[in-house]
């Protein structure tokens, strides 16, 4: 038993309650896996800030809280209508919607999916699919495992499996929404997403985590993505969780030759938010870009922890993360790049820029390069700064109010990432969320 877990009996009760409610076709296969994972978690516990990879993110309060499993009861959709409408506005997409962890059939695409796009949930897992799925669920993370991955497996609930057939291009984004509006304390939600992008397939995937309410909850999500040879996936992850939410997002990507994976990650604040991104460039000439914007105030915290492994020749990785940090908020960025001896002609570049809008705001940035090949190009750069006082004065001298001038400058800072990475409706969708966040909660008290 890991000494960090003080609330073990409550956790065991929650897990028993969870297993008892599992009435999906997945149950006979998954039950053993979930029990094993729970036992593993009991040994591993929650990650500790004593571990180097977890220096900046503290989740130890969960060891004392009584985590409760969010039930399977059908949610009251009227409560979610507004969230759903706001989240889908401005983005024409195929929808898959969860409310408090339960799939909402009324709002999700049933028959309307395009040819070549296959979507499964726990409700329609069959033996054939399970055979493909099991190795993914049991797979070890290459670059270090921890308790949250086991915990996700133990409580695995919103399972979504996506498969895009070879050489198929999906015309519209697939938008998966996780809407939370809980009045109950300490709910744990454990979404699990597996994506197979088959050879030459193309798709845009949007994940939105949107929360409301004053209660603390824990979204503990895990995603595995396989981008096969010559396939490409654009992946937007939008984390607009409620103020008190905690969010762990484990994201594991494996890429084949000449494949392309582009992540755009937007975080508009949560009590604690940690993204673990592990991208393995396992095929020659594969390309990945990891981009992100975080806008934080109050006592919010975001930790973008990224690891890119260049395994083969001529692989390219790009990272560009920007944080706007106000109040007493804190932002961290870690960019590990590991270049294998075989990965000659690797081209890796990363940039992290932070803008602090208050005296108590903090930013930590850590590039970590491990290079075992001799013919490589690896660049990294980081900045921590404040709003340009000259620019602020210039705008104000033209009659633009201090508040509006700050909003314009912060938006301009943050948008640089979106301007480079996105275009069209995806760009506008992201920009309106960032703008909205800057208009609410980034007032004069931040200065």
């Amino acid at each position, binding site marked *: 038993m890991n000494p960090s877990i003080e609330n073990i009996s409550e956790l065991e009760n929650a897990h028993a309650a969870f297993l008892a409610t599992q009435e999906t076709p997945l149950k006979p296969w998954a039950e053993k896996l979930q029990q094993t994972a729970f036992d593993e978690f009991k040994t591993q516990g929650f990650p500790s800030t004593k571990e180097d990879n977890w220096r900046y993110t503290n989740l130890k309060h969960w060891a004392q809280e009584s985590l409760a499993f969010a039930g399977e009861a059908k949610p009251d959709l009227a409560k979610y209508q507004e969230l759903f409408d706001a989240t889908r506005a401005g983005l024409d997409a195929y929808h898959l919607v969860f409310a408090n962890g339960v799939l909402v059939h009324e709002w999700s695409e049933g028959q309307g999916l395009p040819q070549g796009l296959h979507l499964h949930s726990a409700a329609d897992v069959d033996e054939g699919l399970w055979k493909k799925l099991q190795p993914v669920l049991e797979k070890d993370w290459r670059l270090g495992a921890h308790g949250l991955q086991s915990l996700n497996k133990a409580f695995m609930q919103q399972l979504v499996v996506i498969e895009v057939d070879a050489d198929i291009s999906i015309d519209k984004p697939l938008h998966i929404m996780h809407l939370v509006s809980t009045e109950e304390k300490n709910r744990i939600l454990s979404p699990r997403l597996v994506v197979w992008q088959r050879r030459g397939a193309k798709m845009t995937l949007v994940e939105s985590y949107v929360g409301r309410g004053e209660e603390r909850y824990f979204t503990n999500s895990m995603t595995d993505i396989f981008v096969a040879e010559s396939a490409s996936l654009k992946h937007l992850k939008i984390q607009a969780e409620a103020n008190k939410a905690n969010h762990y997002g484990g994201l594991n990507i494996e890429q084949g030759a000449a494949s392309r994976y582009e992540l755009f990650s937007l975080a508009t604040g949560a009590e604690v938010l940690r993204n673990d991104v592990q991208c393995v460039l396992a095929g020659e000439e594969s390309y990945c870009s990891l981009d992100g914007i975080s806008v934080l105030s109050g006592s919010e915290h975001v930790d973008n922890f990224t690891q890119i492994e260049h395994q083969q020749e001529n692989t390219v990785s790009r990272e560009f993360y920007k944080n706007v940090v106000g109040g007493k908020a804190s932002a961290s960025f870690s960019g590990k790049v590991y270049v294998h001896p075989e990965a000659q002609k690797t081209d890796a570049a990363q940039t992290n820029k932070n803008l602090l809008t208050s005296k108590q705001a903090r930013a930590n940035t850590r590039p970590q390069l491990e290079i075992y090949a001799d013919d490589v190009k690896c660049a990294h750069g980081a900045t921590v700064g404040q709003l340009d006082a000259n620019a602020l004065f210039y705008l104000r001298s*033209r009659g633009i109010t201090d508040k509006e001038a700050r909003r314009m400058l912060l938006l301009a800072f943050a948008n640089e990432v979106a301007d480079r990475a996105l275009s069209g409706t995806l760009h506008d969708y992201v920009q309106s969320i960032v703008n909205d966040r800057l208009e609410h909660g980034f007032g004069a008290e931040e200065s």
Partner: protein
Amino acid sequence: MLEIKNLSAEVAGHQILNSLSLNVPAGEVHAIMGPNGSGKSTLAHVLSGRDGYEVTGGDVKYRGQSLLELEPEERAHEGVFLAFQYPVEIPGVNNAYFLRSALNAARKHRGEDEIDAFDFLELIKSKMSMLEMDKVLLDRAVNEGFSGGEKKRNEILQMLVLEPTCAILDETDSGLDIDALRIVASGVNALRSPERSILVVTHYQRLLDYIVPDKVHVLMDGKIVTSGDKDLALKLEDQGYGWIEKEVNQEIRAEA
């Protein structure tokens, strides 16, 4: 319109303005000339409300109210405009969006509706033609990558759009070639009217060939040491500032 009375100001503990008095009535264009370090730019910055300048004495009355108590944006709303010596580059903020925001802020202050996008474009394009500005500058970030001349024209463009009642031009001529100077001056002249006062801060007489001032003041050691008409500027161009310094020193000795 603009009455500066015994204005003293410090920057980082150094006194720059030294009981400066100046009166610019409505309808007039006044020029302030003076050697390097005489306080010309400090005066412009104090009038526009920039941080880092501490007013230690005196007052500035604008249309009867104290200007110094107002925030920079409030001064702009009241019709005060400073054309910057060094216009600021603002990456990521679109120039057209910026101009429209500034215009709408003024309109809002006057209780008017926001200008619609089409009308704004018409307005801005006519002003740009007048300044012979390339329209692509509208789609770029504010001043980012603009040449020196383009930046100065962009200042005058903002002035023409905002139509201030009191415009202060801080060395708008610096870095301009003769053609650009003529164009910028014609933009300023277009704004001359009986309701407006314009204060031109400059090193060189050349600009005053195109923007002919009603009065010329010489600023030295933080105060106006002499004033005259446009011929004073010509004399300065011809003889430099040395003779004024001598006169001032003689006066001081005579007083003693």
